[in-house]
């Protein structure tokens, strides 16, 4: 009896968690006039691709997707490479000021993103990088403290014997990092890559500030503008929102074990 009640509550929670996704997908497949006349939970019958094809053809959705893919892809690649290097230096190499510097990295995690936006914008303007992909990508390309922290903690759990053995065989620092540490750290690097990709895909503030033309506009900026323009035409903006979420849902379901495990780990550190 008690168990049934527990399940009922847990199930209700799960329904609340997924209902907005399901209702959005459902409504995006409805005929435009049915989006307003029927309730969100009434099934799309007959289902139609009309909203999607309209959003796709009339607005630059393919452009938004491409720009977002470039942005998120480049930032993810950069972060994985440079976080590995920095994490290795912090985890295994001896140099003066190491712990102080690492502590400084951690301390900046408390600084809100928006606080640094005005000076960051001015720095990019100084370099002539306003409304360019380089300007868009650069601030997070070299790694962020959180990612470096994540990889460093993982590197420290790898037994030192392995590196010592490699060094006896003549491997230098770089060889050790590339041949020993990175292959052993695949799970955490996959996690870092997935989380970075999702976060960059979702970022609004920085692209909003640094880009201002059609050829650099990313999904977040693009569909926020659509929402401003077509506030009450839900069939259009819901289809756009569904298109922005679908790749994320795919990535999430594909890598869910990595993601769930990595979130669980963050709290235990």
């Amino acid at each position, binding site marked *: 009896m008690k168990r049934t009640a527990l399940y009922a*509550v847990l199930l209700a929670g799960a329904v609340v968690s997924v209902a907005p996704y399901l209702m959005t997908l459902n409504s995006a497949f409805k005929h435009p006039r049915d989006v307003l006349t029927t309730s*969100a939970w009434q099934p799309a019958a007959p289902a139609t691709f009309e909203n999607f094809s309209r959003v796709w053809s009339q607005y630059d959705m393919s452009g938004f997707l491409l720009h977002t893919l470039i942005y998120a892809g480049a930032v993810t690649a950069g972060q994985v490479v440079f976080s590995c290097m920095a994490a290795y230096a912090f985890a295994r190499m001896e140099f003066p000021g190491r712990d102080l510097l690492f502590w400084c990295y951690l301390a900046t995690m*408390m600084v809100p993103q928006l606080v640094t936006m*005005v000076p960051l914008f001015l720095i990019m303007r100084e370099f002539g990088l306003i409304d360019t992909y380089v300007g868009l990508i650069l*601030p*997070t390309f070299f790694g962020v403290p959180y990612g470096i922290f994540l990889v460093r903690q993982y590197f420290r759990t790898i037994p030192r014997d392995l590196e010592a053995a490699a060094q006896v065989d003549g491997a230098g620092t770089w060889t050790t990092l590339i041949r020993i540490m990175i292959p052993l750290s695949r799970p955490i690097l996959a996690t870092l890559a997935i989380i970075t990709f999702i976060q960059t895909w979702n970022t609004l503030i920085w692209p909003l500030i640094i880009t201002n033309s059609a050829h650099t506009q990313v999904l977040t900026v693009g569909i926020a503008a659509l*929402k401003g323009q077509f506030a009450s035409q839900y069939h259009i903006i819901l289809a756009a929102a569904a298109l922005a979420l679908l790749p994320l849902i795919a*990535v999430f379901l594909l890598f869910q074990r990595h*993601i769930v495990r990595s979130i669980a780990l963050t709290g235990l550190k």
Partner: protein
Amino acid sequence: MSVHTALEAGRSTDARAPAPRGPRRRRRVRAVLEAYTMLAPSLVGFLLFLVAPIFGVLALSLFDWNLIGTPAFVGLANYRELAGDPEARRAIINTIYYVLLNIPAQTVLALLLAVALNRRLRGGKVLRLLYVLPWMAMPVALGIIWTWIFDPKYGAINKLLGLAGIDGPAWLSSTTWAMPVLASVNIWQYTGYTMLILLAGLQAIPRRLLEAAEIDGASATQRFFRITLPLLRPSMFFVLVTSTIGSFQMFDTVYVMTQGGPADSTETLNFHIYQQAFRLFRAGYASALAVVLFCLILLVTVAQYLYFRRRTIYDFS
């Protein structure tokens, strides 16, 4: 090891002059250089895009500047203006209100779910996955979806309320309801994530302690408050600190759903900074606001740290 020494030896004969320092010292210098090479890209990014802007914002807050002309040094005038600015005070109060709506509800809900899922129920893994699903969603897309869900006429919430015979309000155009709606979107998005971290903390608590307490006749409530909760403190601390910092920074949802309205009732500090900097081009004043936001976050984080520090942390590993 032997390869390294051989290389060192080769180098020192190349240099022709007798090495003033021993090879050990030289190897150490090289190791340090190597470490900094490894660190260089991240360090450049860190200094240029994180440290420089932090000092930049402090400096800018002492200037009056529209981002185009010559900046004029005004000393603490921006802070003085801020202290007497009702809009800034409003934004700070709104931000604190939003955080207070968010954190307790989210943490308690997450804790309840985590405790329930810690019983190793059948289907627990699937439930866990479903709860985390909102976490990765794009806040901009969520803003659109939740605007629709809370639409007074076509939205799911008011249609559901209608079925129960209740006439739902115009949520997002009400100065009373707009902020709770924004908070509920955030609670929806992050409860599952918080639950997962707490669940990991719960699973790290040794079962034998709870069993021992049960044998000693402690009730379920006593076991929860006397054993589970105190042992969950490290996870709790992490969850509270990160989610509080996160809520102070909320931007996307306001930007998409309300733009600070109606009547500034959802104008948070973060959104206010954006407006001042990039719509009104008051770089100096916006920087002063940013410094205030940072101090506010620092204050709350330190308070949380002190509260959690003065309690014992148990280690059973």
